[in-house]
């Protein structure tokens, strides 16, 4: 499933990809880091459903949020 991972902005993409591989996780194609403030960024990744519990101890992935499907209110 898709997740939004909040990381420190000092973490570059290749470093992040290395960390994500440990959890059988990869950056969604075309997704780019989106800054949240001066210190944090967020990026969309594809990974296992239990990613938050798997990566609970990972200090470089401080917040893992679902990127849930939405509906158009037609």
């Amino acid at each position, binding site marked *: 499933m*898709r997740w*939004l991972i*909040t990381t420190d902005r000092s973490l570059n993409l290749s470093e992040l990809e290395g960390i994500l591989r440990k959890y059988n996780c990869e950056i*969604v*194609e*075309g*997704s780019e880091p*989106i*800054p*949240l403030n001066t210190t944090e960024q*967020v990026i*969309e990744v594809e990974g296992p459903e239990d990613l*938050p519990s798997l990566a609970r101890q990972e200090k470089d992935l401080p*917040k*893992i*949020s*679902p*990127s*849930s*499907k*939405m*509906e*158009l*209110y*037609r």
Partner: protein
Amino acid sequence: MAKMKVLVELQGAAPQRQAFELFAAMTQSVMDMEREASALLAPAAGLGVEIDEQSCPVPLLGAVAVGTSVASALAAFATPTTNPDMSLETIVVPCEVDRSKVDELRSRPGVTVWPNSPLTLCQQGSGENAAFEEAHTLDLARSAAGLDCRPYRAGVPIATIRELLGVQRVWDDGFRGQNIIVGVIDEGVNGNAYPVVGGFSRPEAGQRWGTAPVTSHGSMCAADILVAAPAARLYDYPFLGVPNSGGALTMFQAVLDQRRRDGTPQLTNNSYGFVGVPDQNLWPNHEVWDINHPLHRKIREVTASGAACFFAAGNCGQNCPSGNCDPSGIGPGRSIHGSNSLVEVITVAAVNSQNERVGYSSQGPGMFEPNKPDIGSYTHFFGNFGPGRPGGTAQPFDNGTSAATPVAAGVGALLLSAFNDLAPEQLKALLMETSTEIGSPGWDTEYGQGVINAAAAYISRVRRGGAIA
């Protein structure tokens, strides 16, 4: 000789036939009609009277006076059962006759000649003025329940919605949404039908901004923004594939980036969201539970940058929820959630043109901010969809809180074109304070503070000395 069209009423014709039986026989074929009509017109023989083939003889059942048998028989038609046929008193035959023969025709026994004057279709021309004339068909009779559920009431023209919003008052002062750009975060807008002047598409996206079909959901939103603000322009932020919060996050970042560059768009329309509430124990970080989800944080950034964000309340109201709704997300307290229930955004419920809540409109309290929705706005009208509209009749009319929200966003654009210093929280307060109260006094879970009123908001701001742009 010049001929004229007349209606020839004949006494005592076809006494052997019942009225409805005779009419049915004559409407089944032109040949049968001509044969019957020729026989009926025997009293007019020798005057060159010709039957109008485009019409059909019509039986009259006699004077309908209170207490007569005919009146009693007709009154019985109100029952859902089939009633017996009736005898005819006279029969009227549409004909053409030489003008010189009309007087002689009138003199024939049992014959009455009536004019058959041309009628004119009450057809509206094109353009705004014609549209406004249509709006005078306003029917504000509200049902006792104040609720519109399946089968829904018929759609109404845009002109009716404009009349209800009172936009003419603002237009009269020269404000029509000009200099305002509304960001439409949706499945894409058709740039041929609607004034798309920019937007954002991921480089790998198959769909560039402004290229969606005119039947798209985003095109409907575009049409509905222009109801109140016809001079506004649009940015198109199309989701790539299935909408998700990652896609929305990207689009809000694009909005923020554009605002950073030139201060536009001044507001966004968001007619999407979630349709269920997952178990909090299993999904504590889900968007409906975690107020610090990155999407919500980004939206707070966008509003903090001065862009008002209009969000649909959702279509999971308890009375007639959309078929997409999960039972976990239906009804009061469970159906306005995620970004749609942030205190920073303007959350819009839906009413029809008679100020009845449409039964699918989601109900508060919101799951983040309890006092949601904020306001009600109009849906079920011929905006993008409907007879003669750009999207055609793929749908009978624009619908959902999806339509109500861009109507409200259009009012926001209209007000911002007049008062460009209104911060999002001021715009929200103005819309709420000046809304037309429906339902319970004050704020309530179904309509919010009341139904949006552009004229009232504009006048209120003018009276308070708001700086006009």
